[in-house]
């Protein structure tokens, strides 16, 4: 079927301009619960994921709220020690596995990947749906563990506490995470096959948008790291539920072996949480600076380098566990090396602004916030890679601050930025821009107020996972908890105005941001089959201006990046 092409620069009729009997959008294509729960449309699956991860986000956030409320004072006020321990465990387990890891890849990735490469769907659509069910199934097991009484081992499940000593629902929680791990693996298989085999004609590897490269490298990590977590958790389950001794010290087992296996997955996992965010930021900064990305090739190799080197740095979580000095030095060295590609990316994003035409729409505010917060978080990673400093701050709030800067300050900012940027494409509606800008700025300040004092508390010696703490740390905890209140408001605001926009927001044009990228060359929202013709690609990504020329104010995109036959 070929659709008539209007004269607009996008080469495609805006939905409201012409009524030519075009197929309905994917949202209207099928009604009823069955059409959603049994869908194989990657776009609908992305929405399913978005709903469930939002629920988990607020569950994990509720746990964090109680934790920070308790920490206002040095003594115990609200909860007993066991409850507190269960709260921070819930926060970690839910936020890592049921929010952060699926967030960008399974919502934005699922929705955008086929669109960005000009495909109709992912390579294995039914497997995609199975992924969602596995994710939700695992999540339900974890919620069941919570309702049954909770688990108090920390999200890291260190043995022998988790296998022998804990009184919580360890097995149930571990099974839940195990199940959700297979969701990740299935997604990884799907994405890798999709990118290899379903690119539109003319779309060679080095013409791919960086978001696609980010999905690709993240999927490699999904496939290679998650199975090791599955085995590790299976061993904990077997030891706890069937008494099979694997890590039991009394019978010759080694608890440090658990740590090696756990971190072999969990260190690549943190790169799984940041690489998609980096992909989003590359899309946002190019669009709102109206500029091609600075150093595209270096950016691609940086993504690959982070994914590869990230597999070999896990020992830096265990410098105080008694490893030999030689092993420690190797891990320290590799941890410094893995920071180099991240630094390259930060410089290149900054360089993309140079001689651009910079706008300050809300996605760009999130993106600029990302660069600052990621830089600070990444630099504190160097502190942790230096063994003497790490020995002092390991298991203190310094580490907590470091990883929240990356996982929350950076990743969640990128998720929100991407959500806002592609909201018109996904829903066909625009959100109120002023509220969005305010929320982005509030989030930036609330975040810094929450987590920067934790660096100080950590270096002063406040350990993490402490229900009560020595009084000299109180001032930093009060600052941090106050910031958390601000941050909570900043997270609730998008929930409010984005929901509002679904019903009352202005209808979006095909390409409200005048962005490059194949996903903008179809209607907002897209039809079930994504495109009205077959995309064909003739040039590289980010065609905001001709090569070798700087962007001009109000210059529209070069329309010749792709055409529809």
């Amino acid at each position, binding site marked *: 079927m070929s659709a008539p092409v209007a004269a607009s620069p996008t080469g495609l009729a805006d939905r409201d301009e012409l009524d030519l009997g075009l197929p309905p959008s994917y949202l209207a294509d099928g009604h009823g619960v069955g059409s959603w729960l049994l869908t194989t449309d990657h776009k609908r699956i992305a929405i399913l994921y978005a709903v469930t991860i939002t629920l988990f986000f607020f569950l994990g956030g509720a746990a964090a709220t109680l934790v920070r409320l308790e920490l206002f004072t040095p003594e115990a006020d609200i909860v007993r020690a066991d409850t507190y321990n269960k709260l921070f465990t819930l926060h970690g387990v839910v936020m890592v596995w049921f929010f952060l890891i699926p967030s960008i890849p399974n919502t934005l990735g699922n929705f955008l990947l086929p669109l960005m490469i000009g495909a109709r769907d992912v390579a294995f659509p039914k497997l995609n749906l199975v992924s969602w069910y596995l994710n939700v199934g695992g999540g339900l097991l974890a919620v069941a563990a919570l309702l049954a009484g909770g688990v108090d081992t920390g999200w890291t499940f260190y043995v022998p506490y988790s296998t022998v000593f804990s009184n919580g629902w360890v097995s149930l929680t571990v099974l839940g995470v195990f199940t959700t791990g297979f969701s990740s693996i299935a997604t990884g298989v*799907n994405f890798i096959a999709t990118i290899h085999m379903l690119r539109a004609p003319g779309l060679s590897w080095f013409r791919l948008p960086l978001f696609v490269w980010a999905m690709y490298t993240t999927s490699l990590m999904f496939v*290679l790291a998650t199975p090791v977590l*599955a085995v590790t958790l299976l061993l904990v389950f077997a030891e706890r539920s069937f008494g099979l001794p694997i890590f039991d010290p009394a019978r010759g087992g080694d608890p440090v072996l658990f740590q090696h296996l756990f971190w072999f997955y969990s260190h690549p996992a943190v790169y799984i949480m940041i690489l998609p965010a980096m992909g989003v930021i590359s899309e946002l900064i190019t669009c709102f600076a109206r500029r091609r990305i600075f150093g595209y090739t270096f950016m691609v190799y940086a993504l690959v380098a982070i994914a590869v080197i990230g597999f070999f740095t896990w020992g830096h979580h265990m410098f105080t566990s008694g490893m030999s000095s030689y092993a420690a030095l190797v891990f320290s060295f590799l941890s410094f090396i893995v920071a180099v590609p991240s630094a390259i990316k930060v410089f290149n994003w900054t360089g993309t602004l140079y001689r651009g035409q910079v706008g300050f729409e809300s996605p760009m505010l999130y993106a600029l916030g990302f660069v600052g917060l990621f830089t600070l978080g990444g630099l504190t990673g160097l502190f942790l890679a230096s063994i003497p400093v790490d020995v002092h701050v390991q298991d203190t709030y310094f580490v907590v601050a470091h990883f929240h800067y990356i996982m929350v300050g950076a990743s969640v900012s990128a998720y929100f930025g991407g959500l806002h940027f592609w909201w018109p494409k996904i829903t066909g509606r625009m959100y109120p821009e002023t509220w969005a800008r305010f929320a982005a700025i509030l989030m930036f300040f609330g975040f810094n107020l929450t987590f920067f004092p934790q660096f100080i508390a950590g270096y002063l010696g406040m350990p993490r996972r402490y229900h009560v703490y020595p009084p000299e740390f109180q001032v930093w905890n009060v600052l941090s908890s106050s910031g958390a209140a601000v941050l909570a408001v900043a997270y609730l605001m998008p929930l409010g105005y984005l929901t509002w926009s679904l019903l009352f927001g202005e209808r979006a044009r095909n390409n409200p941001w005048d962005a490059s990228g194949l996903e903008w060359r179809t209607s907002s929202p897209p039809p079930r089959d994504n495109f009205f013709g077959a995309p064909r690609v003739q040039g590289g990504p980010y065609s905001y201006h001709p090569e070798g020329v700087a962007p001009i104010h109000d210059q529209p995109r070069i329309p010749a990046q792709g055409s529809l036959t």
Partner: protein
Amino acid sequence: MSGAPGEAGAAAHLREPWSELETGPAAAFARQRDGATFGIWIFLASEVLFFAALFLIYTAYRIANPEAFAAAGRATNIVYGTLNTAILLTSSLTMAMAAQGAEKGLFRRLTLGCLAATAALGLAFLVVKGFEYREDIEKHLVPGAHFALRQAPAQIFFGFYWLVTVVHAIHLGIGIGLVTRLLVKGWRDPDVLTENPQVEVTALYWHLVDLVWVFLYPMLYLPGRAG
């Protein structure tokens, strides 16, 4: 081999999103087959990491406790183990034959027979394993208070043994299910298996399960027995 039956078969197997590619049905089907094969290879990579983690645990503990592991290795039943190895290797042969037959659409009865043999051999493996488990329980080779061997780390060997053989058996069970499914589909409709990507996917999965056993056999049955 092309011709009307082949093309009709190809069109029947085509599914989204491969069906929407801008090329004829035969080329699209070839891409779909390639996609399925590519996908299963990536999944197998994840399975390799899965079992590699288990093997790493075994290796670390064996290096730390050589005598206990040798004593424990001597306690496994090498007859059952070797028999099972032979069964599984033969089943890989029959699976490969079935895959070749299905690929070419020739020797339909042989293809179905080989699929049936594969499933039967897989079941035979599980039966032998069942006998072995019963004997292991009778000989008190279950880690716990009444464990038969006196070296404590031998309990770790047997903790690993029970875990990894059960995990392998679950994988094998899934494989038997997949093979049986193909058998039933091929029995009902002769053309379904011809050039069907599902056969290649099942075959590769089966070979991985076999390969894992090839590593497990020397790990579980041969320590302490050499020399």
